[in-house]
């Protein structure tokens, strides 16, 4: 024992790893399975143990030039070849190139009688021959537990297995030993006891009638590894473990801005639109125009000569194209040019992990700059909120790492507008809420930005109109403590218009009245003036008459005086006339 631990410690200093080539697994295990050591893969029936092993060998032969041996205790090589051909692996070709050996070990309990002691030297010899014939670096024993049912005397068998694993280790072979899941234990026959370097557990969990495969690294001596249960997938291209891209938040943030496809919305987002590589959530109740917004965004992405991936969980490609043409968006031109790729699938079609894997694969093949999910809420039908959230977290991390802008739509409940079902709002950089505004017997759409990280954004509610030329955002009527939309807004505007006219008419009227008053007064002034003038004239005339009278009178007096002078004396007249003159 002491020298065993010492040996392990020495190996721990730098643990060489053997990459599996299984997508995602090498990331979880930080480079692969321990090189030159056995790894136990345990799981129930149909978990993909055999496939796991075979994929390890096939990838090893194809990618890393490490020939491998598949020792099967259950299926013969013809069956194996057939089974894996359907997964796209041509095992015969690898066998012909001496990169792979399929060896079927046949044990039939009924044919075997045991008397006395034995060992498994035959198996050792057999393996040795195989290893030498192609210079194998990898080996899979599937499922060695069969020996327990075929051979009695467990004590001998255990000792021999222990020897076998040590022997493989000494040979420097990276081995995978598969084992059936036991009752409450990892394996039925306690093989984990012998394989202590790395243990991988595969599981098949069924929730809501949808099965999800999961994988967990139970133990990995001398190496750090992801400890979670990771969903994995088996499809026509083998296994992929998904998707553990960024366990840490390390993605670089872009400062580039991209348009939302709606100029007015861009204006609300600081005038420039979304950040590239950010995650955008559009939530709203049914029929608030989420898909239309998504289509606008897709359209703008394609217009910039970028590629866009549209994942539809509710409608078919054709239906979306037809519906969007009614609001003046021609998506078909983009699909024809290959800039827009649709992927429509019912969420219940397959498990969550399958969705995730497909999304990943699509992203890998399409290499889009933007991905749309319409709507994510439907994934809830497949798995619980927690799983979906976990999936989306990983998905968003993955997208951000690749600088792909993600656009999600989310169907929310009427009474929980500012809450997403999946609780994923915290993962989103920009959250736009679409809501119904019911007023005056009609329903209108309103839009506002709940949040938008790292940019200035409008706090205003905008009315959201779907016209035959696309989405239009207009300002709602805000005033008198009320927000009015639709016909109510129109009515209010008409009313205001009328009031306005009325007011200007009043002003005109007042002006006219003023003018008239001035005219009246001026007329009065003129009349008085003329009256005065006539009076003046009259008075002047009178005055003249009086003067004339006065003179005439004087003359008369003089004449009279003169006459009297003639009568009474001239001297007296002279003195009197002198007095009068004074």
């Amino acid at each position: 024992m002491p020298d065993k631990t010492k040996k392990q410690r020495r190996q721990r200093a730098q643990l060489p790893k053997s990459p599996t080539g299984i997508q995602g697994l090498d990331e979880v295990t930080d480079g692969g399975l321990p090189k030159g050591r056995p790894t136990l893969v345990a799981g129930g029936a149909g978990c993909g143990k055999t496939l796991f092993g075979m994929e390890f060998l096939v990838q090893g032969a194809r990618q890393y030039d490490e020939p491998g041996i598949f020792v099967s205790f259950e299926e013969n090589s013809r069956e194996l070849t057939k089974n894996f051909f359907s997964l796209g692996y041509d095992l015969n070709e690898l066998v012909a190139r001496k990169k792979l050996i399929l060896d079927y070990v046949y044990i039939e309990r009924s044919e075997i009688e045991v008397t006395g002691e034995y060992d498994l030297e035959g198996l050792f010899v057999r393996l040795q021959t195989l290893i030498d014939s192609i210079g194998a670096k990898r080996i899979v024993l599937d499922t060695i537990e069969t020996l327990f049912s075929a051979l009695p005397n467990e004590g001998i068998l255990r000792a021999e297995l222990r020897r076998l694993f040590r022997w493989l280790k000494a040979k420097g072979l990276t081995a995978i030993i598969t084992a059936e899941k036991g009752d409450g234990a990892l394996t039925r026959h306690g093989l984990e006891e012998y394989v202590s370097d790395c243990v991988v557990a595969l599981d098949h969990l069924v929730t809501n009638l949808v099965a999800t495969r999961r994988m967990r690294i139970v133990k990995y001596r001398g190496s750090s590894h992801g400890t979670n249960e990771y969903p994995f997938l088996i499809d026509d291209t083998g296994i992929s473990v998904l998707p553990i891209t960024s366990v840490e938040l390390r993605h670089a943030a872009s400062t580039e801005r991209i348009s939302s496809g709606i100029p007015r919305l861009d204006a609300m987002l600081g005038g420039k639109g979304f950040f590239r590589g950010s995650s955008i959530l559009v939530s709203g109740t049914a029929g608030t125009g989420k898909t239309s917004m998504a289509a606008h965004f897709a359209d703008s992405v394609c217009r910039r000569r970028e590629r866009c991936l549209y994942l539809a969980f509710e409608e078919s490609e054709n239906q979306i194209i037809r519906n969007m043409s009614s609001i003046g968006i021609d998506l078909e031109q983009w699909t024809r040019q290959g800039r827009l790729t649709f992927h429509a699938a019912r969420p219940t079609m397959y498990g969550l992990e399958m969705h995730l894997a497909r999304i990943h694969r699509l992203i890998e093949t399409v290499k889009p700059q933007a991905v749309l999910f319409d709507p994510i809420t439907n994934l809830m039908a497949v798995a619980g909120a927690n799983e979906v959230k976990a999936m989306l977290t990983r998905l968003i991390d993955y997208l951000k790492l690749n600088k792909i802008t993600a656009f999600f739509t989310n169907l929310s409940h009427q009474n929980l507008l500012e809450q997403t079902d999946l609780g994923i709002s915290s993962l989103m950089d920009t959250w736009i809420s679409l809501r119904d505004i019911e007023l005056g017997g009609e329903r209108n759409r309103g839009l506002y930005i709940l949040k938008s990280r790292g940019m200035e954004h409008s706090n205003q509610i905008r009315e959201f109109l779907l016209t035959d030329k696309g989405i239009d955002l207009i300002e709602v009527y805000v005033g008198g403590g009320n927000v009015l939309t639709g016909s109510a807004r129109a009515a209010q505007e008409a009313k205001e218009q009328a009031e306005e006219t009325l007011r200007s008419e009043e002003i005109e009227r007042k002006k006219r009245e003023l003018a008239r008053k001035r005219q009246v007064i001026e007329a009065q002034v003129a009349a008085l003036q003329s009256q005065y003038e006539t009076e003046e004239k009259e008075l002047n005339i009178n005055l003249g008459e009086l003067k004339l009278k006065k003179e005439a009178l004087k003359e008369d007096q003089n004449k009279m005086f003169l006459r009297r002078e003639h009568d009474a004396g001239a001297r007296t007249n002279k003195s009197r006339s002198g007095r009068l003159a004074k």
Partner: protein
Amino acid sequence: MKKTHTTKNVRSRPAKTTTKKAKTKKRRAPEELWDLRLYVAGQTPKSLAAFENLKRICEEHLAGKYKIKIIDLMKNPQLARGDQILAIPTLVRKLPTPIKKIIGDLSNTERVVVGLDVRPAR
């Protein structure tokens, strides 16, 4: 004693080819000849014990009607695959059919006799 086994081992090997050729002839009268093969891997105590036991049992029950071929997998490792040999030592009854395998050092005579199904032949 041990030395005799080795010589027999050596002797038995060339006989291999002859038995293969003679197979069809012998199948006509399967009860007449017992074609037995003992797979070993080197001369381990277990293998030697197995051979000892086998010889004794055969002499006792199948005198004159048996043929033992010893195959050393250390020398002919590729043969392990053909007869699906895992455990060592393994005794294979090629004839009469069906093929039977007995694993172990054959120390339990009773079980070997039952396993080889030699009783009726007596």
